């Protein structure tokens, strides 16, 4: 555990940038123009990237199994056994994540200089972007759960701020709110998982901690493992319940099946935001969490298979929705959800390093795709509907080429980064041995393969619809006057080229063992995941199977590409339009179902949001009419105050009135009737009172 004080600078620099822009940005922008805003904003993540490289150099120099750099700033919550401190930890896994976050982040900062160039609140955008970098880096570098939770919800906040960046339209604000609340549901699961883990360890060993390394050491002891898996809560073993709860957190953040609804709506934000947050970095936080807690997940086969299954189902489900989407960013959003499904398959079957490999490669090509779509949108003057694009290859050659390369990568064409990482995941899924049911690996692999075909199809569909054929843009016809789509400025295209290059090259650091070539990434991440290595058992298929699968997945990618090319190239083929207008009930039904995203959003609104809104009305009514009335001394106060104060406030008085049958106030007015003012009634009462006294004296005291 070598101390490395520079670590603290990595997250703090972007924070500095964010603070600078937030407080001073507006004035600087007015006085010195845009440069004064975006130069420091780009510089900060850049320096963080440089420090990450230095840290990498420092790590490499350390022996294989002690590659951990830490720095502790101050102890944050020293209460009881909760020993959380503001401390950062850089181990190989964190380095990989930190590396591509800072690298892709800096590139996207450069890109957004071009993309947002005429935005009035330019400074606000960059301060939010820097704030996001800060929170993401805190999430990745945190050495304990609570600091990670700070990063975890911090990124949720930044995604909220950035999605509703153009807050003037109501739908953007609503999308931002939806993202935050769905993330918050995930965080609810994360919190409960953390508490359950913390206290169950405390129950077993008497001492507990929130720091990952301590927990890993504690869980390494067989006695603790046996105790955690034997005790049950709500029918599940303790360790699997902890795993499921953490996975709920991961689902919320990484948009898996039940909690993915916010990601497509998150496209309401500016495209660089979608690229940075909703493609490359934030959404992978869930995968990072599961990878970081590999020692927890590995212990319970049930959770492993659950994660893999959810990943696989999400992969296929999101891919199918991608077929009929017209908005280019929605297509990419659903592709992100489906690619995340693949990562969770990787983590679910225990191939952690492969999942991280896919996270990295996905960061490159998905960022490239999103930025490509960004430059397309900018080129066509904020037009996002693919049906009104087409033939942009002529106008935007660089964007077209980089988009094409990224599509090949994501589809998994041979020798692209996507091919290596996705194929490795499919192979590990096929070969995994420790899923619950023996055939599990095969089924997950099958779903993955189906997803791969769909991915190839809808990606190339989007390519062909936008870049081939003739321009269907609304402004002016092909070839003369009007607003011609134009190529994006240099600072955007250079970023696209870099990313496209990386999405080709990145694959070579994780070559499959089949080719007996050194897999640097596997070797690099090995010490991190050594803890659960012996638990993960492979089904022991020969390398023959691996070759067959590799060829089969390439074939899948090609078929997907061919299909898309046949249907959508230069949109000559009328088949897709015929399919849409066809009256055939079954086809039309399926099309409408898929086009409307299986009506998931509508179902959620009706069920969950509906229930909450209904229940709040009930609570409010109870509060105003029953609690208020009952507690006011049985209506004395309410009715009395209502009447005496001449209030016509219906809620208060109604509530109080119906609680007055035996209220003191009504007794009060009854007493006034007794005081008639007639002397003889007084005497009568006096005498009867005396007699009552005498009788009472006898009855009570004999």
């Amino acid at each position, binding site marked *: 555990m070598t101390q490395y004080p520079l670590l603290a600078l990595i997250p703090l620099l972007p924070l500095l940038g964010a603070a600078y822009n937030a407080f001073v940005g507006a004035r600087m922008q007015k006085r010195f123009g845009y440069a004064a805003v975006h130069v420091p904003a780009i510089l900060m993540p850049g320096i963080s990237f440089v420090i990450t490289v230095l840290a990498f150099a420092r790590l490499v120099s350390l022996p294989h199994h002690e590659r951990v750099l830490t720095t502790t700033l101050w102890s944050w919550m020293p209460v009881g056994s909760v020993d959380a401190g503001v401390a950062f930890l850089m181990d190989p896994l964190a380095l990989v994540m930190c590396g591509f976050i800072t690298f892709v982040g800096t590139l996207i900062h450069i890109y957004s200089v071009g993309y947002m160039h005429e935005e009035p609140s330019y400074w606000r955008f960059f301060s939010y972007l820097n704030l996001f970098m800060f929170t993401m880096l805190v999430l990745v570098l945190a050495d304990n759960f609570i600091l990670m939770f700070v990063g975890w919800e911090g990124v949720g906040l930044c995604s909220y701020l950035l999605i509703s960046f153009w807050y003037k339209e109501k739908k953007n604000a609503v999308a931002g709110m939806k993202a935050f609340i769905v993330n918050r549901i995930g965080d609810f699961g994360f919190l409960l998982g953390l508490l359950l883990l913390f206290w169950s360890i405390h129950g077993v060993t008497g001492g507990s901690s929130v720091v990952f390394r301590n927990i890993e050491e504690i869980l390494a002891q067989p006695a603790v493992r046996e105790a955690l898996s034997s005790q049950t809560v709500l029918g599940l073993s303790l360790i699997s319940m902890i795993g499921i709860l953490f996975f709920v957190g991961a689902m919320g953040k990484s948009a898996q099946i039940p909690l993915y609804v916010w990601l497509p709506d998150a496209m309401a934000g500016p495209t660089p935001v979608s690229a940075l947050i909703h493609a490359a970095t934030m959404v992978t936080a869930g995968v990072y969490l599961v990878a970081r807690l590999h020692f927890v997940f590995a212990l319970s086969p049930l959770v492993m298979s659950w994660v893999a299954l959810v990943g696989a189902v999400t992969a296929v489900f999101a891919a199918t929705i991608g077929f009929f989407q017209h908005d280019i960013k929605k297509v990419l959003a659903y592709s992100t959800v489906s690619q995340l499904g693949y990562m969770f398959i990787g983590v679910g079957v225990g191939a952690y390093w492969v999942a991280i490999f896919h996270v990295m490669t996905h960061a490159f090509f998905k960022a490239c795709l999103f930025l490509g779509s960004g430059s397309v949108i900018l080129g066509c003057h904020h037009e996002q509907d693919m049906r009104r694009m087409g033939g942009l290859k002529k106008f935007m050659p660089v964007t077209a080429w980089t988009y094409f390369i990224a599509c090949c990568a994501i589809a998994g064409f041979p020798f692209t980064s996507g091919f290596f990482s996705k194929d490795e995941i499919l192979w590990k899924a096929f070969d995994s041995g420790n899923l619950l049911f023996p055939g599990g690996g095969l089924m997950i692999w099958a779903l993955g393969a189906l997803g791969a075909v769909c991915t190839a199809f809808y990606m190339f569909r989007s390519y062909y619809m936008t870049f081939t054929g003739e321009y269907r843009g609304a402004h002016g016809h092909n070839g003369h006057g009007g607003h011609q789509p134009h190529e994006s400025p240099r600072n955007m295209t250079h970023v696209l080229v870099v990313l496209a290059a990386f999405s080709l090259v990145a694959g070579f650091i994780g070559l499959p063992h089949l080719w007996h070539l050194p897999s640097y990434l596997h070797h690099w991440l090995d010490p991190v995941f050594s803890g659960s290595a012996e638990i993960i058992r492979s089904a022991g298929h020969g390398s023959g199977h691996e070759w067959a699968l590799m060829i089969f997945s390439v074939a899948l990618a090609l078929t997907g590409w061919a299909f898309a090319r046949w249907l959508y190239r230069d949109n000559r083929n009328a088949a897709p339009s015929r399919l849409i207008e066809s009256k055939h009930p079954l086809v039309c039904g399926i099309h409408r179902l898929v086009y409307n995203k299986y009506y998931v959003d509508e179902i959620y609104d009706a069920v969950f949001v509906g229930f909450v809104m209904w229940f709040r009305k009930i609570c409010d009514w109870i509060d105003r009419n029953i609690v208020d009335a009952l507690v006011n001394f049985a209506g004395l106060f309410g009715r009395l105050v209502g009447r005496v104060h001449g209030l016509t406030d219906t809620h208060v008085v109604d509530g109080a009135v119906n609680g007055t049958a035996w209220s003191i106030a009504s007794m009060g007015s009854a007493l006034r009737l007794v005081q008639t003012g007639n*002397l003889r009634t007084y005497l009568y009462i*006096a005498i009867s*009172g005396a007699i009552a006294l*005498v009788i009472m004296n006898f009855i009570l005291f004999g």
Partner: protein
Amino acid sequence: MQQDLTAFCPEIVLVAGVLAAFVADLFLSRKPIKRVVVAAIAFVTVCGAGICLFCPASSSGLLFGGMVHADAFSVYFKALFAVAVCAAVVFSYFSDEVERDRDGEYYAILLAMTLAMFLLSSATNALMIFLSLEFLSVASYVLVAFRRRDKRSTEAALKYVVYGALASGLMLFGFSYLYGLVGSLDIVEIGRGLEQIFAGGATTSAKLIGSVSVMMVFAGFAYKIAAVPFHMWCPDVYEGAPTPVAAILSVGPKAAGFAVLIRFLISALPAGTIPWPAIIGIISVATMTLGNIAAIHQNNIKRLLAYSSIAHAGYMLMAVSAGSPDGTSAVMFYAAVYMLMNLGAFVVVMSVRASAGGSEEISTYDGLSKTQPLLAVLMTIFLFSLVGIPPFGGFIGKFYLFAALIKKAGYWYYVIALAGVVNSAVSLYYYARIIKAMFLKEPVSGNNIMKRAPAAFAAIAVILAVPVLVLGVYWSPLYLFAERSTDIFK
């Protein structure tokens, strides 16, 4: 005999004062300075009586053959009456409700009433009790009826007379039976006799007559302190009577009633006889609750203060039911604090009544904080003290009442304490209605043409408010004085 007279000097001073007042009224009639002279005489005599109280001879023992017992207990109450009547003389002088031409008699009768109170608080003989009670009642009937041409004053007096006569008739009848049973009029002998009857195996009919007669005697006292079954006269009389009279009625006779009640219960009804703590407890809860609840809906300020005085009688009865020396000292302390608060409140009522042309509705108090801020602040002090909110004296008084109860630690005592607590919370509401009117409402346009009330009322109110505030913080001298004078239990 000679020694008795020296001990009796406060009463002698008062008698002299009464005579002087009547003579002065006769000789100086129809001269303007008559009012001043008679008032001065009254003031001087009451102060003289007060001072004589503290000369050494005054608390020596049984006088006039056991008729009167000048002990520390009665000295405390006599001091209380002296202070109350001093204040009464002053604010009656300035009040326009007392007819200017006949107020010579007013002060004379006031002094007579003081004398009656002095006697009542020290009477230890049935005859003396009945005599001083009747004397006190008669004096207060005349005062209530003082405004001859006012319908309300006459009606109030009529009700007071007939009700009072019935109650004292009942008491007389009760005493006659007690006399028959025990053969003596001295309450200590009565106590011993009753003890024999209830302890020895006397015939059940004797027990029956004993308890009936005690209940009848109690009726007389209950009428005087306006406890529940005998409280009907109180609201009408306070509303009808001229305000100074209502003020002194709500403090003087009520405290005297408590003095004689305590003395009678302690000496005439020792432990074995009638379980009077339980009965008094039940009556106290009934009195408190009725006083508070009925006061909520009042719109006439004097009627509201009448019900509030009934409620406070209930609180004091609560401590009486504890029956312990603590209980008695708590009642005595509370009587003193209550006297200050209630007189203060009535003085403010008089002042507002004078400046608002005689209207007694609570609505006349709207926006008083703007038109007469000093009065509003003083009234707030008195009202919050009546509720029993800490920084004021009223809280300390109530604190001692509850302390006496809880110290007895019986099941029913907790129930009574709980009832007392709930009642004082409920009482906040009707007191706060006045405060709300004064502070939170804007003055009705008609009101702010108020002509200035005599400054004397404000002065008296301030003089009364100071001890209420001081007692809230430093109250040990008064408490020591009250505690020392519960010697009749030793």
